[in-house]
């Protein structure tokens, strides 16, 4: 089969690799019909996530048709159309039973390695480094899906791939970003990053009752999208001081909740702190460049919530813990518990409450994926989201 493999930092290629095979009786093999490039794939692409090796197949947002099933998967049939959640979860451990699917205690066979860096291990993830399992990713013609009796969501009506594909990651992730805030009517929510997750966080914050949502980015078409499709007020951080503007908009209080949808490669103006972060990141003495997170913390209203949905891999410097502690902020975060949100969100899509298709800017074949990565990384050609059709 053809698959997109990581070769070196900022270098990916489509190669012929062996087809996947059932390894366990709870596996399924899915023929991928649509798969997307995620913002978090860019962290892998750029080489900032540890333990990605040349040849590893990337991709964790995918859906397709079941072509083969292990003997113990009885809830699916060959030919079923499924969306696959990016966290791999067994459904039987304590974490899964408590609805914390991205903390599955069994799905990461490299848990020992993850423990050394993080203390304890999170779940395994498709195509997301060896430390998180060493699973083949979904940017391929076929993919092996472990615990197929637990994760895949069957799509039984005539919704298109574009409408449901994002249930695999970014729609639930954006929604969880808002859900974790515990939004109450009248609350003001600010969202850092108007990429796909940020767009869905804006929409979700309104769905959950926010009175005003402010989106922060610098890419004009993304800010326009947040305004026109999401109804957000927008701030371009290159043109204005975000902290001052937010203080002004909220008459001094700051937003009640801040959602960070940026992650470890935040861009910011060339300031001494940015230079410091970049130097430390390049010399591997810090894995993150957490400028958006720092700003979200400083901006947040006293007693408010900072919800971190951007991906971080290791250690951050200059973390304003004093601001968090002295001002009673709550930090909520986590890889999305996709299994928790995908069914209710499918229902909202079906009812027309959310139409996730508006973020798609490009459709491409799998062979064009390397160009897709390049466009998405550099935000060229008004690229907001690339969907690949193998």
């Amino acid at each position, binding site marked *: 089969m053809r698959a997109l493999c990581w070769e070196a930092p900022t270098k990916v290629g489509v190669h012929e690799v062996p087809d996947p095979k059932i390894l366990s009786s709870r596996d399924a093999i899915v023929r991928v019909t649509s798969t997307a490039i995620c913002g978090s794939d860019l962290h892998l692409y750029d080489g900032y996530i540890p333990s990605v090796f040349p040849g590893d197949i990337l991709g964790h947002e995918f859906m397709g048709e079941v072509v083969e099933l292990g003997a113990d998967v009885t809830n699916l049939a060959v030919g079923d159309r499924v969306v696959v959640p990016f966290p791999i979860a067994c459904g039987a451990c304590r974490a899964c039973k408590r609805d914390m699917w991205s903390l599955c205690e069994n799905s990461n066979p490299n848990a020992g390695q993850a423990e050394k860096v993080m203390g304890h291990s999170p779940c395994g993830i498709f195509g997301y480094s060896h430390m998180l399992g*060493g699973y083949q990713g979904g940017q391929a013609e076929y993919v092996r899906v472990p615990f197929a009796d637990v994760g895949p969501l069957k799509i039984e009506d005539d919704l298109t791939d574009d409408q449901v594909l994002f249930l695999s990651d970014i729609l639930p992730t954006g929604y969880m970003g808002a859900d974790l805030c515990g939004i109450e009517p009248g609350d003001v929510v600010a969202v850092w990053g108007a990429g796909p997750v940020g767009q869905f966080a804006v929409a979700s914050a309104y769905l959950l009752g926010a009175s005003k949502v402010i989106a922060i980015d610098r890419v004009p078409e993304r800010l326009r999208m947040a305004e026109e499709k999401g109804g957000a007020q927008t701030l371009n951080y290159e043109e204005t001081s975000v902290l001052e503007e937010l203080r002004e908009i909220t008459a001094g209080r700051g937003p009640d909740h801040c959602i960070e949808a940026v992650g470890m490669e935040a861009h910011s103006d060339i300031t001494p702190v940015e230079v410091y972060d970049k130097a430390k990141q390049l010399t591997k003495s810090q894995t993150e460049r957490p400028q958006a997170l720092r700003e979200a913390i400083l901006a947040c209203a006293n007693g408010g919530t900072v919800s971190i949905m951007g991906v971080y891999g290791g250690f951050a410097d200059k973390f304003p813990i004093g601001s968090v502690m002295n001002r009673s902020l709550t930090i909520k975060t986590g890889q999305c518990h996709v299994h928790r949100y995908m069914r209710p969100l499918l229902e909202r899509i079906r009812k027309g409450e959310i139409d996730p298709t508006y973020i798609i800017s490009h459709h491409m074949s799998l062979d064009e994926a390397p160009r897709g990565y390049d466009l998405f990384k550099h935000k060229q050609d008004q690229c907001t989201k690339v969907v690949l059709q193998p």
Partner: protein
Amino acid sequence: MDNPERTTDRLARFLGVASAGLGVPMLWKTDEVAEAAGVDDSRMAPAVIQAVGTRELVHAALLLLGPSRSVWTRVVGDAGDLAVLTRALQNRTGARRSRTQAATLAVLGITAFDLYVATRTLRRQHGKGRPGPLELHASATVNRSPQESYAYWRDFENLPSFMLHLRSVTQDGNGRSRWEANAPIRRKVKWDAEITGDEPGRRISWKSLPGADIDNSGTVHFAPAPDGEGTEVRVHLHYDVPGGRVGRMVAKLWGEEPEQQVRDDLRRFKQVLETGDLVRSDALPQGTDARHQFLQRTAKPNKHHGGGHR
């Protein structure tokens, strides 16, 4: 009991501090050092001394922050120093020559000590068979009842399904069992064991019988988790290591990181009980395995496991 490994580590750290003690005066009191070594007449001496001083600080950093076998970098450096001093001796006369001789003798002494510590680290690398008990401990919480967890473990023939160092265990029905370990090629490591304690749902203890290739014993405790759901499993393994051949066998069975291996064994026990199978990925098609942690396949289907869908 004095632990030879710890002594080696302490000696290496001491050499780290000593390296810093040598390096700092060379960098900041270069002229005084040159005079003491009788080379203050050389125009090149200050540059050479400062280079050596810088190198000493590198040794210090390596020894204080890195593994103790970094002592070998000191031995290599010493050889260089001796070469330079020998050269200096040829051009010196009188009082200067005596001072250079004294400096050379001092460096010879330091070299001897460096070499001693360096060979100690070597002995440790090849000497996993050093005498003393090997005690391993690990724990995990399994989302099954103590009775279920106990029952799976109590059937010793299940042990190889999650304990990687075992090839097979067969039971004879009288509380005795025959264990065979996954020893390196052509060697068979085996022992007979008997159950020495058995409290259903709570504890199992076993011990190898006389005549075992490796004398060992183990205990596993099962306790209800505090919230009443699941079981806290705690395992203790004990190996008598008389040194020599048996020591090397034990070292091969348990590899570089024995504690990690036992933890992984329990992880697999948990996987089998909770999910019914080992959890496999493309990088680890054989499942969790500390020994393959640093030699993993790429995260793509591999030929041996490849199927066909076209």
